[in-house]
């Protein structure tokens, strides 16, 4: 495994002793060359997990192993060489690109910081990387504000990949892009990922995007992972009522199909992460909730094998709940 996150907890203080339960006991694994799509609604804790993996924020508890090495408690200094192996791509490349640097300086920066290349070698590698992400060489002398959104995201990718990292954490990298631009950036990401072989934690709220590029999916709700599994299986047979609701709510761009689909209508609102509900955190909105769901916390289990895990009391060895049938 390139990445192994075990029982990760991240609580943010919110004043007067209140605590935001941003991530509560998150465990996940990413194999060599695998793309894991982390999905869930706003505030579910996706970015928090991504930042903890990169140690951009300090986990409250739990462990993070990178390529077999426990990095949870490494000092900043000990962490430095490892920063070569893990890189991040952000949603808005504009705010993450220094406006006073040229594109060349931005893409070359990781090489310089880690002292892995000097002089002519730097510009050789920068030029090669620019070509790899489909940006013309003339752009090297430009500044971020002179580029379009799609071009800036290519620069963000070039910078993240120039050290040939083992793991890339991409947080909503195409969410700000238009469909036509998004298509070319998504094609580029899949091409680069297959050719360079890096593993990827791909964070997004867009199910159609993960379906396109993730090998496996993990679904988060209110700081917890409720289901993980191979992408095709999650889409073909979602097991957690929340996953079922999420999949059924995303409208498909086909009016005939869309207007025939059965939707899971969720009652209530997303509870506050300051005071998550006891038992299964989804019980306040789950159309199938039983008494047990209100009191006992369901563990992630893999009842049918095949690395398809689900945390729901209603998934038994015989039966998978169907929230679309509830009314």
């Amino acid at each position, binding site marked *: 495994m390139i990445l192994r996150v075990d029982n990760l907890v991240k609580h943010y203080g919110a004043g007067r002793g209140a605590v935001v339960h941003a991530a509560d006991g998150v465990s996940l694994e990413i194999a060599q060359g695998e793309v894991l799509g982390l999905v869930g*609604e*706003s505030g579910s804790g996706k970015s928090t997990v991504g930042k903890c993996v990169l140690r951009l924020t300090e986990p409250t508890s739990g462990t993070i192993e990178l390529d077999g090495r426990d990095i949870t408690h490494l000092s900043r200094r000990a962490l430095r060489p490892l920063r070569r192996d893990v890189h991040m791509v952000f949603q808005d490349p504009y705010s993450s690109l220094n406006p006073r640097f040229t594109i060349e300086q931005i893409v070359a920066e990781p090489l310089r910081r880690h002292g892995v290349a000097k002089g002519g070698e730097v510009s050789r590698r920068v030029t090669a990387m620019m070509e790899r992400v489909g940006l013309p060489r003339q752009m090297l002398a430009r500044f971020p504000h002179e580029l*379009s959104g799609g071009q800036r995201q290519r620069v963000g990718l070039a910078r993240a990949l120039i050290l040939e990292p083992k793991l890339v954490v991409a947080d909503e990298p195409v969410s700000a892009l*238009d*469909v*036509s631009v*998004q*298509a*070319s950036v*998504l*094609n580029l990401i*899949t091409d680069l990922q*297959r050719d360079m072989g890096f593993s990827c934690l791909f964070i997004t*709220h*867009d*199910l*159609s*995007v993960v*379906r*396109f*590029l993730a090998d496996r999916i993990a679904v988060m709700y209110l700081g917890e992972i409720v289901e993980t599994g191979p992408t095709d299986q999650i889409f073909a047979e979602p097991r957690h009522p929340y996953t079922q*609701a*999420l999949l059924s*709510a*995303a*409208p*498909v*761009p*086909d*009016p*005939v199909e*869309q*207007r025939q689909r059965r*939707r899971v*209508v*969720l009652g209530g*609102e*997303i509870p506050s992460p300051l005071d998550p509900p006891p038992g299964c955190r989804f019980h306040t909105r789950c159309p199938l909730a039983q008494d047990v769901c209100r009191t006992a916390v369901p563990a992630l289990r893999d009842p049918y094998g095949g690395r398809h895990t689900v945390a729901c009391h209603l998934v038994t060895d015989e039966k998978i709940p169907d929230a679309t049938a509830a009314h």
Partner: protein
Amino acid sequence: MTLLEIKDLTVGFDTEDGLVHAVRGVSLDLAEGEILALCGESGCGKSVTGMSIPRLLPPDSTRLSGSIRLDGRELTGLPEAELRRVRGKDVSVVFQEPMTSLNPSFTVGYQIGEVLRRHEKLSWKAARARAVDLLRLVGIPAPERRINEYPHQLSGGMRQRVVIAIAVACSPRVLIADEPTTALDVTIQAGVLDVFRDLRDRLGTAIILITHDLGVVADIADRAVVMYAGRAVEQAPVGELFARPRHPYTLGLMKALPTAAAAGADGRLRLAEIPGMLPSSLSDPAACLFHDRCPRAKDDCVTAVPELAASGPGHLAACFYPLEDGSR
């Protein structure tokens, strides 16, 4: 019955760089009780087209021409004082970010009541009762309690419902919703789209829904207008549009969606890309603005503007070489 008729709407903005051509001769109409989607990518002129109707555009820099008729009454020449009466009463607007429309320091009930008092001259008591009804109409549970709450006490989805309640408080003929669900999660979006459907069914409100999301268009719209670089390039009933897109740009958009991924020659899943970039909004050439990105373009696409022409039942496309059936 045609309720709203827009003819040759052209909107430019004076800027330091020159005249920005935001909307270039758009014509469309909206029937009573119809949900019309305006779709297309960022910058294509959806919002400017929508906001031209109540004329919520910067007065100093906007250059607007063409005709906008509501129930036969021309809106473009109306003085500001009359437009103010049109806004809120005949035409109202819902924006993407609910907090831009809500005042954080007043209760929800006060804000809805205010509108009713101003436009309908209701007493506070009557306005309050109406406000409760309106909150119920947009699917807010326990409206008697919610009415005393402040916007920050509500979730994003609830706030957007309140904004919709305010927008429909005076039973407008036309509701313009600009990306009303873009900032919301999908499970919340589904409920808000239901509110629009319900308003149309129960009150007969005609709705212009501005969105870049073709999934939303497929879900809720009766008809859609696809815009590109300030022009309406295609209009059709939604079933027809998705089944038989005529304009190469519309097809390009549909095929670029991740849901349309198809395996390439090497077996890898790929998305269809639209090569090239948007044309500059600073020039206004007499050409099809999509020509340099279009696989079907020929010489005349570079020298003349294709007008919207019929190419099926209720189906219009602005293309010299529209796609045939079965192109999808």
